[in-house]
């Protein structure tokens, strides 16, 4: 047993990286669910984002364009979900599941020519002075831009939902779509926009895996991250701050359990492997013991005639 070989600074730095993909995807889904739509296609949109981002980054040599394309790809796929559920009034659960299966298949097809290729490297944002601060520097100020983008997004979504009129309208649509409709809000339009936003965020999360965290393209590479993001939204009681906390706990415990194994800690590996899921759920369930609950119209179909 050798705790000394675990470097807490490197550990915390890795935590930020491990948490970012699920954080981005979960934030997008949070907005979607706050608008009263349950999109189970996060995994599908993530993997589409992963391949779109990868393909564009490889072909243009620019990771930035890759991330833009990933957001576009994810949004485009989510548009399919929006058409099915908002206009054809299809069942949201079934459509979401279909979206995941479709996304996985389509990404495998798109990715045929990209196996074994290396993407252009994404530079780390080495902030000159802040990055040199001992301990805090490597943890907080030596990451790629997407990590900060994710943190900024948490703040932006929290503020938007809490303080702005747009956030209030979005929540109204999610809580009671009939009342929102009666007040003259365009329920379908608002929901489509929320779905597109969710798709774009999931796409960015996927591209973070294929361009930065792994970085390469392999079929099925998101390996369930989308489902974890979905669960995170529920356990975080649809609150942006708790999504961040959940993503950090999940990412942190994932990285920590690998480090504990490598350090030869005498805890059975089976317990270590399940610990990220257990601890994240436990913490968030305890926190959600307050009055928070799901948006009242979540998953219900809206039609203006009803």
């Amino acid at each position, binding site marked *: 047993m050798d705790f000394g070989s675990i470097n807490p600074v490197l550990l915390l730095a890795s935590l930020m990286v491990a948490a970012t993909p699920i954080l981005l995807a979960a934030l997008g889904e949070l907005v979607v669910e706050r608008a009263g739509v349950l999109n189970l296609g996060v995994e599908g949109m993530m993997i589409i984002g992963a391949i779109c981002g990868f393909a564009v980054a490889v072909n243009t040599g620019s990771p930035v364009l890759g991330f833009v394309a990933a957001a576009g790809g994810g949004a485009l796929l989510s548009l399919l979900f929006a058409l099915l559920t908002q206009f054809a009034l299809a069942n949201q659960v079934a459509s979401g599941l279909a979206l995941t299966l479709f996304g996985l298949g389509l990404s495998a097809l798109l990715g045929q020519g990209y196996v074994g290729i290396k993407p252009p490297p994404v530079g780390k944002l080495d902030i000159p002075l802040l990055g040199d601060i001992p301990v805090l520097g490597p943890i907080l100020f030596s990451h790629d831009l997407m990590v900060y983008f994710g943190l900024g997004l948490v703040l932006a979504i929290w503020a938007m939902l809490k303080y702005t009129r747009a956030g209030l309208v979005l929540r109204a649509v999610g809580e009671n779509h009939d009342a929102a409709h009666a007040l003259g809000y365009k329920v379908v339009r608002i929901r489509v926009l929320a779905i597109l936003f969710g798709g774009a965020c999931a796409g960015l999360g996927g591209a973070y895996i294929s361009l930065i965290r792994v970085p390469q393209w392999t079929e099925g590479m998101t390996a369930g991250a989308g489902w974890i993001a979905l669960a995170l939204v529920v356990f975080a009681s649809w609150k942006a701050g708790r999504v961040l906390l959940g993503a950090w706990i999940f990412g942190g415990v994932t990285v920590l359990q690998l480090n504990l194994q490598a350090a*030869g800690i005498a805890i059975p590996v089976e317990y270590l492997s399940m610990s990220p899921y257990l601890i994240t759920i436990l913490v968030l369930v305890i926190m959600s013991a307050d009055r928070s609950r799901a948006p009242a119209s979540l998953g219900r179909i809206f039609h203006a005639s009803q």
Partner: protein
Amino acid sequence: MNLTKLLATAAVALGLATTAMAQDKTKVGFIYVGPIGDGGWTYEHNKGRLAVEAHFGDKVETVYQESVPEGADAERAITQMALQGADLIFTTSFGYMEPTLAVAGKFPNVKFEHATGFKTAPNLATYSARFYEGRAVQGHIAGKMTKSNIVGYIASFPIPEVIRGINSAYIHAKKVNPDVEFKIIWAYTWFDPAKEADAATALIEQGADVILQHTDSTAPQAAAEKADNVITFGQASDMGEYAPMPRVSSIIDNWAPYYIARTQAVMDDTWESVQTWDGIGAGMVGIGEISSAVPEAIKAEALALKAALADGSDHPFTGPLKKQDGSDWLGDGETADDGTLLGMNFYVEGITGDIPN
């Protein structure tokens, strides 16, 4: 029970009917544990499948299913393939052992081949490669090349095949570098690029400058490349796109000759249930080009070891060897028998940590 029997009989009848209709073509099925684009294990099995197609042309039809989970769901996938009229089905992962055995019992006229397992039936053969011979060569290079004396090992599941690989690599690393230490992470997956990358990063952060992997994706290679000055080995496939650094060599599985021979046997009606276990000598295990990052002297030693393993003059498990608990395993000059190797469930002396159950 009656219903199951009835269904099984109907299924067999259906299978026979389809076989009869397509008698001129032999249908060969493959069940894969990962996607064919994983760049490792499944990729090589699929290359074997393509070689069967290329060799037999129109006389053969192949079908495959990717990313089939190990366990109960595999039984459904294998049954489906048998119902579709496959004459010969290769199930290419250890976790398909019980499902394959169960389906083989229901379809006595279909031939089954299970990779890396040990259970057989009159219509179920097993085949595997002696990957541990390749691991010995890797261990030798790893022991010589490491500067931190820490070798990281990303293991998948605690099954004999993986444990054999760890032991073989460790024995040969230790032989050339007495100070070497292995850090082992059990990933509990064959294929999860993000998790494999995290595992590699964790090992590198703890000082490992050599990463060995028994998982199927190239993610650990990419993680090592980012870290600089860390060397890796291709697993199952050459992974040559990461040469000369970090990938300095590889173990390549070459299934094509075996798949072609077994398909031929089904065509000639000479197929028998056998247990094939071939290594470097028979060409089932290949050692990928040792890259320029390895000094000439070490490369020559590694190639000499490979040659000795191929012609049988050396064996990766040659005594004196002790088990992890200090008890004697092999006496001086004694080599391990296949039975012990196939069921290997212990570390050799010197490896720290426990094998998960």
